[in-house]
């Protein structure tokens, strides 16, 4: 039985999306492209759009509607101060967690 990667990704994607938004004001498809570039191959807009809405609801990001060359206005996201604090707390938690997981996984080699 294969490991269910989606469960592992769910919690970490939010932090990664925030990190991308913290670098520049951007929109959904561009975030998706960046994530794919970093190796998140199995994700779609359907995965990240609800997360963007969630981050917006939590006031970690804000959206601004700007004209799009295609169809209706496009939402551009920027991080808020609260979002920066959330991102920092995610980064600390992730470093601790990944270190702990790496230590556990390294047990067999010792």
């Amino acid at each position, binding site marked *: 039985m294969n490991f269910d990667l989606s469960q592992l990704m769910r919690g970490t994607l939010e932090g990664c999306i925030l990190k991308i938004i913290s670098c*520049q*004001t*951007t*929109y*959904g*498809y*561009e975030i998706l492209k960046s994530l794919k570039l970093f190796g998140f191959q199995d994700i*779609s*807009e*359907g*995965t990240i*759009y*609800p997360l963007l*809405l*969630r981050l*917006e*609801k939590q*006031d970690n990001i*804000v*959206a*601004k*509607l*700007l004209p*799009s060359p*295609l*169809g*209706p*206005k*496009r*939402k*551009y996201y*920027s*991080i*808020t*101060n*609260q979002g*920066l604090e959330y991102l920092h707390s995610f980064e600390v938690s992730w470093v601790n967690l990944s270190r702990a997981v790496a230590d556990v996984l390294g047990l067999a080699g010792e």
Partner: protein
Amino acid sequence: MTKDLKASLKLLTKENKKIISHMERYMGARHLNEVCYDELLSDIVGMALECQERGEKFFDAVGMDYELFCHELVINTPKQSMPEQILSGVIWVLYCTGLVVPLLYVYSILFVNFTPATCNGFLFIAPIAYLIKYSVVALILVMGRYFIKRSTYKAQSVVLAVYLFIFMISIIVVDNLAYTWFGKNTFEIHIVVWMLIFLVLSVFSQVAKRLTALGIAYTKRKKESKAANMYTQMSGKNEDPHNDAS
């Protein structure tokens, strides 16, 4: 629905239009703030149009489970406030009672021998129980539409069967209760006055609902704009995405 959104919907392919109309049905019956719901729909339509432009399938962009996708969106979108919900309820009750009376009036003119109601010019005289019965029937029909919309991604034949069962039972219950409580008491209504009252109340409720929704969405936007400005000031970043937007 805004003009922009209507225009964008026309640009969708038949397949994408079908997917979005299902999403619209599902989310439209979830008591979302009207303005935020329009924004959400506009985002989804925009997403579909961009997929079309890139030659990709919207189906692939959303992923396999539409219901889960819509559910995630619904839980992260502001809901209707209490005043909005009350006004929505008032609007539906108004539509049901408001339209049933003129319909029964026309029916009583066309089928004089098949109705307990009578009319004398514009004066409509009918047993109270009769009016209540058909108002409730109309309300159940409307609620049924709402119930079916909510179950867009469920087996529609089962949903329809459950709905028809509830509908039949409700008619029997209402039929008996209305006549037990109100007997043969009658109600006289001047149909033109009734229509005018209905029209004024409907317009008033619709406007009040829209204004309430706009008020809530405006408060949300103001809060967002404040948060964005604070961040821009503190970080000193240039927030104009047009420089690098594709």
